[in-house]
């Protein structure tokens, strides 16, 4: 790939080291105040060691990154590469403002996590799980294995190339894709695919069957479920899912929604509806 070709041998060594270290970035979580700062420091340590020879400068750079850090980890490496390139500039240019490193890092957390979460959590994982579940439900070991492969191959490749992109393209790249509207297209594509997948999974995985029946004096009793299926297949699962969504969109805590569904299902069971 072109991205990795223009990078010098020493840079490559450093970026690869950052890439490998980035796998542990969420290993520790230092409370709500620092979040994943320790993992971030560990990940960019090779850059700090390389560009600052003086122990005091190294300490200053390390302290700079003890601030709150949290970005979807497969896209977070972009920021790690970017920070490495800025630390390099800071070590070379005397009038470079080191505060701008932290400022840029912090400003990218929201937007990058937004895209990263919806693509990796909302779409890729849902597709991988959809394939995995349908195989595993029949007891096939291919289910979990395919799930891991479908999710991890693209996400690890993204992690790798974004490390290099952050280092070589720098901060102007991010501004450009915002201004040209490409970011909006990317989000729309991700959401379209995600909603389609979730719709299909609502049909296949949310299950409701009533055993209520109307007895008839001479003949088979009429099952309510048959009527509901004729009306619209999967009506109850669809309504329950949309109901949960509506409650969540009204800012009802998810634990209450979970509890509500639990109580609803158990009550229906006690009443002999299911």
């Amino acid at each position: 790939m072109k991205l990795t070709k223009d990078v010098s041998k020493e840079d490559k060594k450093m970026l690869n080291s950052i890439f490998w270290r980035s796998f542990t970035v969420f290993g520790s979580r230092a409370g709500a105040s620092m979040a994943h700062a320790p993992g971030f420091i560990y990940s960019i340590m090779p850059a700090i060691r390389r560009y600052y020879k003086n122990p005091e400068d190294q300490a200053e750079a390390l302290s700079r990154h003890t601030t709150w850090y949290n970005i979807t980890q497969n896209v977070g490496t972009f920021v790690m590469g970017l920070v490495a390139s800025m630390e390099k500039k800071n070590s070379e240019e005397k009038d470079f403002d080191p505060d701008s490193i932290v400022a840029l890092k912090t400003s990218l957390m929201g937007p990058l996590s937004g895209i990263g979460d919806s693509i990796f959590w909302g779409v890729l994982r849902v597709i991988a799980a959809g394939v995995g579940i349908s195989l595993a439900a029949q007891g096939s070991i291919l289910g979990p294995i395919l799930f891991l492969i479908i999710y991890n191959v693209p996400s690890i490749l993204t992690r790798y190339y974004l490390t290099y992109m952050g280092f070589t393209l720098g901060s102007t790249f991010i501004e450009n894709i915002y201004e040209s509207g490409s970011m909006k297209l990317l989000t729309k594509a991700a959401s379209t695919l995600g909603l389609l997948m979730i719709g299909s999974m609502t049909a296949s995985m949310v299950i409701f069957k009533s055993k209520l029946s109307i007895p008839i004096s001479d003949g088979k009793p009429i099952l309510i479920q048959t009527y509901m299926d004729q009306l619209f297949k999967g009506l109850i699962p669809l309504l329950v899912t949309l109901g949960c969504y509506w409650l969540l969109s009204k800012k009802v805590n998810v634990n209450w929604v979970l509890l509500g569904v639990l109580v609803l299902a158990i009550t229906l069971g006690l009443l002999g509806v299911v």
Partner: protein
Amino acid sequence: MLKVALLAALTVFICYGGNWLFGQTMIERPLVVGMVTGFIMGDLHTGIIMGASLEAIFMGAVDIGGALSAEPVTATVLATTFSIIMNVNQKAALALAVPIGVFAAFISMFLKNVVMNIFVPIINKQARENNQKGLTFTHFFMWFLNYFIFSLVTFFGVLEGAQPVQALIKEIPDNLMAGLSATGGLLPAVGFAILMRMLWSKELSPYYFLGFVMVAYLNLPSIAVAVIGVIIVILNAYRDRQLLQIENNQKKVSVVNTEDSLANSEDKEEEDFFE
């Protein structure tokens, strides 16, 4: 039961701790955890099938920014262990997994967001002193401590919880059991609702219903739905890009126009001045 409890706790440590040590590679998802638990407890087949059902239930249990609605690892390990070792009805074990997952999520969040704060001054001190080895050690020690403590929940859950659960399940009346089974069927709705909140917009909502009908009436497998989805996205992207280009060109034109009119008005003023 002590051996089972130890093995279950070890499974949680490997899957949950391993997931976060190795780049969130999704080995914490029920699909994988179910398989691992089944392998360790000696019934791979049941483990895989339990994993598939639990994956659907916990589909929406996403750990975003340290906030999670339900913690799937503990829930999957306990439900699968109960089902394999104690022959608990699978549907009942699935229903049991939900309250366990919610409870475990509280403990996990308390550990990560509150207890681990005690390391903040240590990290600050080590950074100030340029103690790079210390920082590396703290990073990995925090990982170990967090997931070790968390695995204890499962250890005591199996050790202390196994007998009450077994007794409970024996005495459950039929209609309550039916209710518990129905819970397993309806709970995925909550997970999908959480994901929908992330992706839903009025403009795109028809795609949700399209996906629903594709499976409810056309019975398409999920790979087919995914491929059709990618095709729709590509077709839309071409159109959207064209629209975007037109929009951007218009912006440029209008910028040029305003510059022209500004220049014209300045000309006029000059003319007025000379008249």
